[in-house]
C-alpha cells in the first residue's frame, strides 16, 4: 500500500506512521512525542488550523506544515 500524507487523512481515519521527511530537528521531536515508526495514529480533527491526532489515547496537536511531512499507511 502506498504511504500518504497525514493531512490527507479524514477525521476519524487511522493509520500507521511510516516515514517522516523534512527537517531533522522537528523530525526527532516528532519521534520523541510518540510519532515513531509503526505507531498507530488516528486523526481526531482535520479542518482548520493544526491537526489533532490521537496516539494511543494521547492527544497531540500538530501544525499542518509538519503534518504534511508525516507519511502514514492505512
Amino acid at each position: 500500500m502506498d504511504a500518504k500524507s497525514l493531512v490527507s487523512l479524514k477525521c476519524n481515519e487511522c493509520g500507521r506512521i511510516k516515514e517522516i521527511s523534512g527537517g531533522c530537528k522537528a523530525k526527532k521531536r516528532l519521534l520523541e512525542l510518540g510519532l515513531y515508526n509503526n505507531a498507530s495514529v488516528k486523526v481526531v480533527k482535520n479542518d482548520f488550523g493544526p491537526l489533532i491526532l490521537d496516539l494511543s489515547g494521547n492527544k497531540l496537536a500538530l501544525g499542518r506544515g509538519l503534518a504534511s511531512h508525516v507519511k502514514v499507511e492505512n
Partner: protein
Amino acid sequence: MNTIALVGNPNSGKTTLFNALTGSNQHIGNWPGVTVEKKEGKFKYKDKQYNVVDLPGTYSLGAYSEDEVVARDYILKGNPDVVINVVDATNIERNLYLTTQLIEMGTKVVIALNMMDEAKQKNFEIDLDKLSKELGVPVVPTVASKSRGLDSLIEKAIEYAAESENPKIEFSFGDDIDKEIEGIQAILDNSSLEYPSKWIAIKLLEGDQEIFRLIENKGPASIKERLVFLEEKATEYELEIVDKRYEFIGKIVNKAIKKPLEIEETRTDKIDKIITHKYLGLPIFALIMFGIFQLTFVIGGDLLGGYVATFIEIIGEQVVGLLTMIKAPEWLLSFLSEGIFGGVGAVFEFIPLITVLYFFIGILEDTGYMARAAYVMDGLMRTLGLHGKTFISMIVGFGCNVPGIMSTRTLDNKKDRMIALLINPFMSCGARLPIYLVFIAAFFPKHGGIVLFSLYALGIVVALLIGKIFSKTLFKGESSDFIMELPPYRLPIFKYVVRDMWDKVWDFLHRAGTIIFIVVSLLWILSVLPFGVEPYSQESILGRIGTILAPIFVPAGFGTWQATVSLFAGIAAKEAVVAILGMVYAGVSEGSQLVTALQGVFTPLTALSFMVMTLLYTPCAAVLATVKQETKSNKWMIFMAVYPFVIGWIGAVLVYQVGRLLGF
C-alpha cells in the same frame, strides 16, 4: 540519603505528586526571578526529613529546550540520591522514552506508575513485576491525585537509594553504534568531565549541541580532533538512536501490557469537539477570559476588597492613636500614617482581587484548557507571524510577567521565543491591577468590568501588533511549526489550586513587605527633605525631581510631579505606583481617601491615559532581571526597559489627545 528528584513528561501528574508528597508542610522556593525552574519541598517520613526537587516536565533529556537542559543538569550535577520518574500509565510508550534516557544516565531511577485509576478505567492490564524486571528498575503504582501509593513509593525509593549497587539493564543501540560509543568512552574515561562518559558518548552521537560545546571547551584533545567526524556520524545515528529506544520500549510493552483494541470516545473527546471547534473555539475562549475578569472584579473587588481596606484603616488609626498617646515624635507619626499605612497599606487592599485572579488562572492551568487556548489561538497568531504557544506565555503573564517570560522556554525556536519574551510585559500583571482599581473606583465605578477588560484586551492587542512588527523586522524567518500535547481534561484539585494561589499571593506580600517598603520609605525621606519644607510639597526633593521630569507627561495629560514620581517608582515594583499615589495625595488632601483625592486632580480622560501608560510602560525590575537572565544579554534588558516606555507614552498621548478632540 535525603534528596529525591522528580522527573516526568508534562501532564504526567508530576507536580501533583510533588504537592501530595510535600503536603502542607513544605517550603516552596519559587520566588519569581530566583528559581522558577525547579521547585523544592520537604517532607518527613518515619522521622527523617527528605528534600524533593520538582524538575520541569520534559519529553526527553536532550538539549531541545532549556527545560530539558535544566532537568538533565540537575540529575547529573545536582547529585540527587534517587530519581523518581513519574510515568503516565495511560500513555506508557511515550513516557518510557524519557525513562530510557534516565537509565542511560546511570542514575538510580524508581518509576512511579501514575494515574493507575485511569489506566484501569481504560481496561489496561499492566504486569508490574514484568515491567520492573524488563526495565531493571523498581516500579510502584500510584494515583497522585488521590494520594494513593505514596507510602510504598517513598519506601521503595529510600530502600533503592540505600542499595550499594544498582542492577541496570544495558540495552543495545545495535552493533555499529555500540562500538562507536565504546570508542568514545575509552577516550573520555580518563578525562575529568562532569558527566558520565558513556552518556557523553551517546549525546555526541545524537548530535547534542550543548555537549559538543562542552567537549570543544573542556574535552581532551584526542576527542576534539574527532568532533567534525562525530558531527557527521551524528546525522547518521541520531534518529537510529531514537528508534532503538522505542524498539526497546516496544518489546517491554508487548510483554507487560495488554490494551483493549477499541478505544471508546472519552469525556475529553466530547469536550474538545466543542472547545476546539472551528467557529466556536475563539468565541468560547473570549467568553472564558471575559468571565474571569468579571468574576475577579465582583468577588475580589466588590465582595472582599472593602473589608481589607476598612481593616487596614482601623489598624492605622489605632496605631497612630496609641503613638500619639505616648507622645511619639511627629516624624514617626507622619512616616507611619502617610508612608506605611497610606503607602504600603494601599497595596494590601488589593490582595483579595489578586488572589481571585490567581485562583482562576490556576484553574485554567490545571484543567488542561490552557493547551486548547493555544490551539484555538494558533491560527490567529500565525497570521501575525507568531506561534500559538506564545499565547500561553501571555496568559501566564496576566498573573505575573516573570513566570510568563520563563514559560517562553517551551518555545523551541529562538525567533518565536524572543518575540514571546519581549511582548510579555504588555500582558497586564497582577501588580498593575491595583492601579486600575483605584482609578476605576474614582472615575468609572459603574463600568469597572468593562474598563478592566478593555485594558487587558488593549494589552493583548498591543502585544500582538508589536509581535507582528518584530517578526517582520528584528526577528525575520519562519515561525516553527505547532506541536503540542493536549492533555486530558481533569477536574482541578481544589487543595492544590489554593496552595499554588497562596504561594503567589505570599510572593506579592513578600514584595510588599520588602521592595515596596524600601521604595516607600526612601520616597518618604525624599518627600520631607530638605528640613523645614512642607512634607509632600513641591519644594521637597521628591517634588523637585518630579517637577523636572513632569513635562514629559504633559502631552499625555498627567504632567504633575506626583504622577511622574509614582510612575518612576513603579519601575522598582508596580505595586509602588499606588503606594506612592497614596503617600503624595494623602498628604495633599489630609485624611481623605486616595480615591477622593484622585477625583480632584485627574479627569476621567487623564485617568484613562494614565492607566494606559501604566499598562504599557517599562516593566518592573524583577522582569528586567528575568529578561537579562533568560537572554543572557544586557542589551535586551535595556531594550526591554526603553521600548515599552516609548510605546506607553505614545499610547497615553494618543488617548489624551484623541479624547480631547472628541470633546471629553
